[in-house]
């Protein structure tokens, strides 16, 4: 999901008050709902940016709705462990060929049965180039993806997917991947009913799913205002709704939503705005807020294609930069403790996370060592009076911490360091993907599915899609392959953590901290918790 864009830290700033991915807001008409006697919960969100088609939804606003109205083969429990939902079993002997059996008598809310074809057709739809689905790359592991995803390809069925009978289908991957079943809880892998393929665009306006909730009738999605969900009466999975519905009110910024929360016009706010970070605990009072880490991190990527950052000097410099950043102080002061200093490249809530990866002392604050390494680098290749910049998009609310990081580097290393804001996200992405960065880049990752690999492969693998720093290491790549082809996810952990040792040595990106979700709620709701990915567990919320 595209969390990095819809950052949680949107400033109250004139412009930053507007999240890029939010389009306006709304919710005035439902204003009284919060105090209503009905057990419908109101929660903040943003206008979904695309029709609600699972394979075309890659941002938070649409993602959380799709997640509630569709049910995949598996779901994740609060800790991120997979739980079978529509799947009765997912079996493999070689991590490459999987046989998936569905539970009997599963239906969509229009009465159609959920069959093996519901999955196979939906996945083929998502992968086929002609459908231009934003989450296409999720299917890249499946055999035959290359053919259907190529530009102008007319092929639209992946050879790796075979329907055996109504309740069984087989998947053949292009290569063994032990953590592949873990991905199946991501919304892109949801099934679609037959009606969807008749007219996907209008289906996206009024989607029919098989999840714990469904849209409250035609027109439940009022653009730029809100979207109303009610429980699905035929739901059989594990995520049984404990309330009578959820209404997502769309806000353009968290400031406005926070004011609504204080005025009891909103039941649940999933992000505390920066201007209230120091006050929200007293504003809301004990028992009305929660701070919980989730599977996301913040990093700065230092491109290895720049001369001053390549070779031995570059490596020493990257380490010096990392050692010069006072992570504990910045997380404490700028985020009021709402972040955890990072000790590696993934996140603590992920299975297999280790605090003791060799070489992680490079992520500690050690100004003496930093100056020493910097001086060593200067002997090899003098830095001169260059300025160390960190590029970021100004609409994401990053300015405060970027300035703090730059000051920390400036104070400890004695070099000029500053943030370099870009007005639009599109611009900064273009600079990053065209490999024309002149300094460091703000990066961050939000796990799509709870796996160490998801934090490593797409970001640091040679030629990977989000490898902004153009990092390439044969050793690292082979460790990743080793982890993927392990017989079980558990066996893969040690290989992935060994891969991280290589990263800590090369430091293509400097991990800063792990994300922590700060959630606040109104006086009239209870049982609020957040999941492994930081999204509130909406179905468990109850009204007092």
């Amino acid at each position, binding site marked *: *999901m*595209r*969390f*990095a*864009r819809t950052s949680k830290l949107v400033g109250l*700033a*004139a*412009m930053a*008050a*507007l999240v*890029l991915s939010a*389009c*306006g*807001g*709304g*919710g*005035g*008409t439902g*204003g009284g709902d919060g105090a209503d006697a009905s057990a419908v919960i109101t929660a903040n969100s943003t206008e979904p940016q695309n029709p609600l088609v699972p394979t075309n939804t*890659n941002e938070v606003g649409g993602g959380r709705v799709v997640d509630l109205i569709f049910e995949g083969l598996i779901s994740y429990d609060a800790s991120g462990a997979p739980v079978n939902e529509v799947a009765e079993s997912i079996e493999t002997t070689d991590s490459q060929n999987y046989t998936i059996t569905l539970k009997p008598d599963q239906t969509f809310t229009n009465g159609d049965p959920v069959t093996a074809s519901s999955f196979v057709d939906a996945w083929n739809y998502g992968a086929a*180039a*002609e*459908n*231009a*689905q*934003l989450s*296409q790359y999720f299917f890249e592991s499946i055999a035959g993806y290359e053919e259907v*995803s190529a530009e*102008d*390809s007319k092929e639209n069925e992946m050879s790796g997917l075979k329907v055996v009978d109504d309740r069984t289908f087989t998947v053949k991957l292009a290569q063994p991947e032990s953590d592949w079943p873990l991905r199946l809880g991501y919304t892109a892998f949801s099934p679609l009913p037959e009606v969807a393929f008749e007219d996907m*665009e209008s289906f996206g306006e009024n989607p029919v799913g098989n999840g714990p909730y469904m849209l409250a009738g035609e027109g439940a999605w*009022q*653009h*730029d205002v809100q979207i109303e969900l009610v429980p699905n009466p035929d739901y059989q999975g594990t995520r049984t709704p404990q309330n009578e519905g959820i209404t997502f*009110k*769309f806000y*353009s*910024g968290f*400031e*406005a939503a926070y*004011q*609504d929360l*204080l*005025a009891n*016009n909103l039941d649940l706010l999933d992000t505390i705005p920066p201007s209230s970070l120091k006050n929200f605990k007293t504003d809301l009072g004990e028992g009305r807020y929660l701070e919980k880490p989730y599977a996301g991190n913040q990093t700065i990527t230092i491109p290895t294609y720049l001369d001053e950052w390549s070779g031995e000097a570059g490596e020493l410099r990257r380490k010096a930069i990392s050692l010069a950043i006072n992570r504990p102080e910045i997380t404490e002061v700028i985020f009021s403790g709402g972040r955890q200093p990072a000790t590696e490249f993934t996140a603590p809530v992920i299975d297999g996370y280790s605090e003791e990866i060799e070489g992680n002392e490079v992520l500690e604050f050690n100004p003496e060592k930093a100056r020493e390494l910097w001086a060593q680098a200067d002997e090899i290749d003098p830095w001169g009076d260059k300025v160390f910049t960190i590029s970021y998009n100004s609409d994401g609310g990053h300015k405060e911490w970027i300035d703090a990081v730059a000051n920390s580097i400036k104070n400890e290393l004695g070099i000029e360091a500053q943030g370099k804001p*870009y*007005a*639009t*996200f*599109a611009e*900064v*992405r*273009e600079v990053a*993907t065209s490999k024309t960065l002149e300094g460091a880049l703000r990066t*961050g*990752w939000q796990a799509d599915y709870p796996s160490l690999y998801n934090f490593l492969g*797409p970001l640091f693998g040679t030629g*990977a*899609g989000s490898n*902004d720093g153009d990092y390439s290491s044969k050793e690292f790549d082979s460790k990743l392959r080793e982890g993927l082809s392990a017989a079980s996810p558990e066996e893969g952990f040690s290989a992935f953590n060994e891969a991280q040792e290589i990263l800590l040595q090369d430091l293509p990106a400097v991990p800063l901290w792990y994300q922590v979700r700060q959630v606040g709620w109104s006086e009239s709701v209870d049982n609020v918790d957040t999941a492994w990915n930081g999204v509130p567990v909406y179905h468990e919320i109850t009204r007092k």
Partner: protein
Amino acid sequence: MAWYIFRRFLQMIPVFFGATFMVYFLVFSLPGDPIQALFGDRAVSPAVAAQLREQYNLDEPFLVQYFLYLKNLVTFNLGNDFSGRPVAEVLAQVFPVTIRLAVLALVFEAVFGIIFGVIAGLRKGKFFDGTILVASLVVIAIPIFVLGFVLQFLVGVKLGWAKPTVGAEAGWSDLLLPAMVLGLVSLAYVIRLTRTSIIENMNADYVRTATAKGLSRPRVVVVHILRNSMIPVVTFLGADLGALMGGAIVTEGIFNVPGVGQRLYQSVLRGEGPTIVSIVSVLILVYILANLAVDVLYAWLDPRIRYA
């Protein structure tokens, strides 16, 4: 006069084409690739990106894109935004609420601006004049997001007199507070313009004549001084209507109003050509009409002004 107004309407045609062309060109020159941004930090599939570019005509050269836009315009098809919504539908949603908001703000700044300005002008250098000056300075120096935030917190949360946020279907009464916040900066302009004009005209010969004729003070002030002082104020207000509609980004953000300003800002960030061009075109129409109204008002306020 009728001929003059007709001519002004005719002028809209070249202005419309010139403006849409220019705005389209500006959007075309926006840095960054909007399609790439749709993928966030995630991997961009080249095939999907190519497909989307074709869908939004982004693979065409500038002139072709502009021509296609105009061609669709003739059939009243304004195109779709990146989320697949017709731009016409977007316009139909954002303009009504913004027009209400802008009109309220305009009324607010006109009424209070003129009243305060007149009093300050008549009592130049006295206590009230000074107070108004300080208040204007506060409005100028403290950014709108701070004033708006404070007012929202006090009135909406602490006192509970109004809803802290209003939505797309906000009624007139819901919009009172946002309109006040929106009109604050312009209020400072109107007050100072009115005050200066009043001071200028207070010593004019016709005022002395009117006073000498034995007319009551209120009558002299309202009929003689005020009417003759209104030209700069009316000019400002006329030009401000459009600015209030397109520039309410911050106010709309604070009060969560999904209006024109917000939408325009989002579209600029996303590089959504058709949406930007359509919104700006409507705004230009608003400017032209408001300015026409102002010019007609000139002739009414000062009979010496004639248009051929």
